[in-house]
């Protein structure tokens, strides 16, 4: 770990000013990810601006849903009755994340900003375009069991590690950001960006932008939602494949559908083809199987991770059967 300075911000304006003054400054909230990366030498900030004293912890009902402050803890959100009732997929994804100790420290905003678990990214002696642009991607022809089967590029095939972000994607969450030009909102689906030729860029945020809240619009589909996580052990483990499914079924027909995937792409991944295969169709096993097949369209393995494509199809099918109440 390099030597760095630390400052505690009293308000959002001073936090943002501190970052504006120093291009190598970083925010720190729960610190469960950035401190790890600093120990590995992957992150080398000159200044950590602690934002945990900012008043962004609330979990509040609004006219259109629930607004979760960026500094709400994962454990608080998971335990909130309105979340458990109206967005079960979110509560389930949180409880399937990390460990109780980590959930008691980690924040919602920080969770969206967490960086990949790719072993080559986290080892500074290895080639990685995300950490050191232009050095190459060691994973593409290396150990890539946990890597992406969709959305990657020749520069980077990492996976996004968050469970929460996958669940939020399935309930059309909106990220509230405060930047130099004031407040703006970004639909979560457009918040993370694919690696393309610039894998070092992971979100639409500019240096100094501050996530203030995540808005969860209420919907019938969100109330009937489910998170399914397939992993190497029963707890404290990142997803090999995960599925967030939300379905509004009325009169036997699917009126609204969201299918989002984790563990398969450099960003939380929305399976639009699966959703299209569901919308307007009868909520039957045949429809779900077709949607599960559609979810794998365009997926491509790199050898060790080929099995994820099979798991995606099966996990989507299982998750849809669950929310479609036929399982």
């Amino acid at each position, binding site marked *: 770990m390099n030597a760095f300075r630390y400052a505690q911000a009293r308000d959002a304006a001073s936090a943002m000013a501190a970052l504006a003054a120093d291009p190598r400054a970083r925010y720190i909230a729960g610190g469960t990810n950035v401190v790890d990366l600093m120990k590995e030498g992957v992150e080398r900030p000159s200044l950590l601006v602690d934002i945990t004293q900012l008043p962004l912890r609330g979990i509040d009902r609004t006219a259109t849903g629930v607004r979760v402050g960026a500094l709400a803890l994962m454990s608080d959100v998971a335990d909130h009755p309105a979340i458990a009732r109206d967005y079960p997929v979110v509560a389930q994804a949180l409880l399937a994340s990390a460990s109780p100790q980590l959930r008691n420290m980690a924040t919602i905003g920080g969770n969206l900003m967490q960086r990949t678990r790719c072993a080559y990214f986290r080892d500074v002696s290895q080639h990685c375009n995300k950490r050191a642009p232009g050095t190459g991607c060691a994973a593409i022809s290396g150990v890539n069991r946990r890597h992406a089967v969709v959305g990657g590029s020749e520069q980077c095939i990492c996976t996004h590690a968050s469970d929460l972000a996958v669940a939020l994607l399935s309930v059309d969450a909106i990220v509230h950001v405060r930047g130099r030009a004031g407040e703006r909102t970004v639909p979560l689906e457009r918040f993370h960006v694919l690696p393309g030729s610039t894998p070092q860029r992971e979100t639409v945020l500019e240096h100094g932008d501050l996530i203030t809240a995540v808005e969860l619009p209420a919907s019938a589909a969100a109330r009937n939602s489910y998170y399914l996580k397939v992993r190497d052990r029963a*707890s*404290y483990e990142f997803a090999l494949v995960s599925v967030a499914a939300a379905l509004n079924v009325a009169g036997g027909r699917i009126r609204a559908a969201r299918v989002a995937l984790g563990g398969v792409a450099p960003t939380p991944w929305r399976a639009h083809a699966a959703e299209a295969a569901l919308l307007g169709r009868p909520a039957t096993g045949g429809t779900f199987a077709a949607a599960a097949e559609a979810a794998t369209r365009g997926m491509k393995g790199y050898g060790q991770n080929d099995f994820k494509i*099979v*798991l995606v199809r099966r996990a989507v099918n299982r998750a849809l059967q669950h929310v479609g109440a036929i399982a």
Partner: protein
Amino acid sequence: MSATAERPATRGFVGLPIDRVDGHAKVTGAARYAADAPIAAPLHATIVQATIACGRIIAIDERATRAVEGVVDVLTYHNATRIPALPFDFTAPSSEELAPLQSDEIKYDGQHVAAVIAETFEAARAGAALLRVEYESRAPELSPGGARTVEQPEQWFGSDAQPRRGDPERAFEAAGVRIDQTYTTPIENHNPLEPSATVAEWRDGELIVHDSTQWVRGTRAVLAKSFGLDEEKVRVIAPYLGGGFGCKGFFWPHPLIAAMAAKLTNRPVKLVLTREQMFTSCGYRSETRQRLRLGATRDGRLQAILHDVLGTSSRVGTFVETAGGVTAMLFDVPNIAVTHSIARLDVPTPTAMRAPGEAPGSFALGCALDELASACGIDPLDVLRRNHAAVDPSSGLPFSSKHLLACYERGAEAFGWSTRPQAPRAMRDGGELVGWGVATATYPALRSPAQARVVLGADGSVDVASATHDLGTGMYTILAQIAADELGVDPRAIRVRIGDSSFPIAPVAGGSMSSASVGPAVQDAARRAYREAIAIATSAGGSPLHGLGEDEIEACDGGLRSKREPSRAIAYGEIVRLGGSGAIEALGSAAPGDEGERLSFHSFGAQFVEVRYDEELARLRVSRALGVFDCGRILNAKTARSQMIGGIVWGIGMALMEETVRDPRAGAVVTNNFADYHVPVNADIAAIDVLFVEEPDLAFNPLGVRGIGEIGITGVAAAIANAVYHATGVRLRDLPIVPEKLLAAQAAV
């Protein structure tokens, strides 16, 4: 405590499930592990490791490192103490012949190339991150398949590494049923919770080292030899270990680096390996490729076993994973051929890891027996019973005490085995397939010479000392129990001191031999102290026992009393004062005799496992495990049970998740942390039960104890793989059994 009547000199503490006597010190933080050694203001050393697997260093740029505030010095091959090569032998057991920091040669990724020494841990870490080492790299050999150098060792640790009897090839060809399969196990790392650590200090030409080692005397010997010192000038201290499992058994290079750094700076130096460094710096279990050929009659009686084991070793040290050792002795088979080969690769040196040889060997053999049962259409437990060996087939000697059939019986009854349908895929629960598997556990009973000292003080204190070790398993507690029984003292009132090379000799805490080696030595020392106390108490004027004979006296409540008139009693402290020499001090010793020429000593057990499998999601869980063990006398029912449960948990990890993965091109470990190297978490572990068929093995030693450190893991992976077959109908012969292998096996059906 009703045993008092039969054994007047004891109070029956041995065997009781008493709490660990060191438990309070551990949970309150009072127990000092190596890195907690009470040394004021040590310097901190951080190791820098090679990032290539084969080649040499061409330049080291220390400028940025030395510019870090607090960095004191940088140790590299340019300024390191010159020390000789360290060939392995049992008096100086170095895992690697290549002494650290002696040249520019790089023999494996993760080899130590420098140590940054600083006033603070943070400065040492920061300095290490800034050290620039340039290499000239050659393409490494990393895979045993097609390796240029493959050796077939004749012997390993005194045993025949290529045992053979009968005419196995012909018997195999002639057999009515033949199984010919290859089983593979991956690299696994020990991963004790406490990383290896050393605090080294030179004081007036003497070297004092606090080290997390399973062998204080072995570590002392290598350090003395390396620095050209008499062994008496080196003291190694290791009162507590946070697990070892074999990776702290033989000597590894880092304590030398700590001692060199202390010498260079003339200050005490603390060095703690990082978790990442633990994957390359203190051994691992070699991967194995095991071809097993079984020839049997149609009713499942083995006629021949051919077991060919390919493991790996490094360019700088040798370790043979003797997975075939178990094959030569476990079943009654007339024709056997076992071969062990090691491929020399550009990798770190493997070492002993909990149940070395037996863990991967019992997996392959246990699975092959299950395949034989399927081929014959016989219940797998019946195949195990039918091939039971009444005498050790590898030596022809009778076993000292073997109760394996009782393990099978008790286990089958407790598990409910008789209701098991023979066909696979025949049990379901909800949406899940359920399968049951069984396999045999075994580990040799080993014993080495050992000594112990018991001191009775004038203040009534009782001290026990021996240069043995407690890896977290209960050594402090059982030694107190043993001494307590001899002296009639509460074990919690006895002070046990271990883990110091200046104490009476004890062997490495390995090979499951500490209890059987050190226990009898403590018993002997306590008996000698007891007799000395009697001699004083019966001869000293003023003693209430004056004039009585030895057989008229018994131990009671921290002293002695008359059997006939219990009110005539005297405390040990009073006896010591009467004796006038300040203390009663007795050195005890115990060593194996020639019993090994007449008897074969082994422990046995049976592992029963239930798995549940969600076929659509390839989700596999062990829902139930039962181990039944025949390990001689159990010294502490609580710590023994814990140790067996730990072994079974290890077996579950081995079967389902543990795997150290190296980059196939460059050799760096890419799973060198607990997020990527998976061990079971609590949620993975369901019901585990342990039973003991407790038959004291008095032919082995006077306590009747055989060790229990390793046997718990043996057979577990086979039982799980067999249960997976029973649940799913597919055989998984390549560990760990991860989702992609289950999916591929299903797709191939």
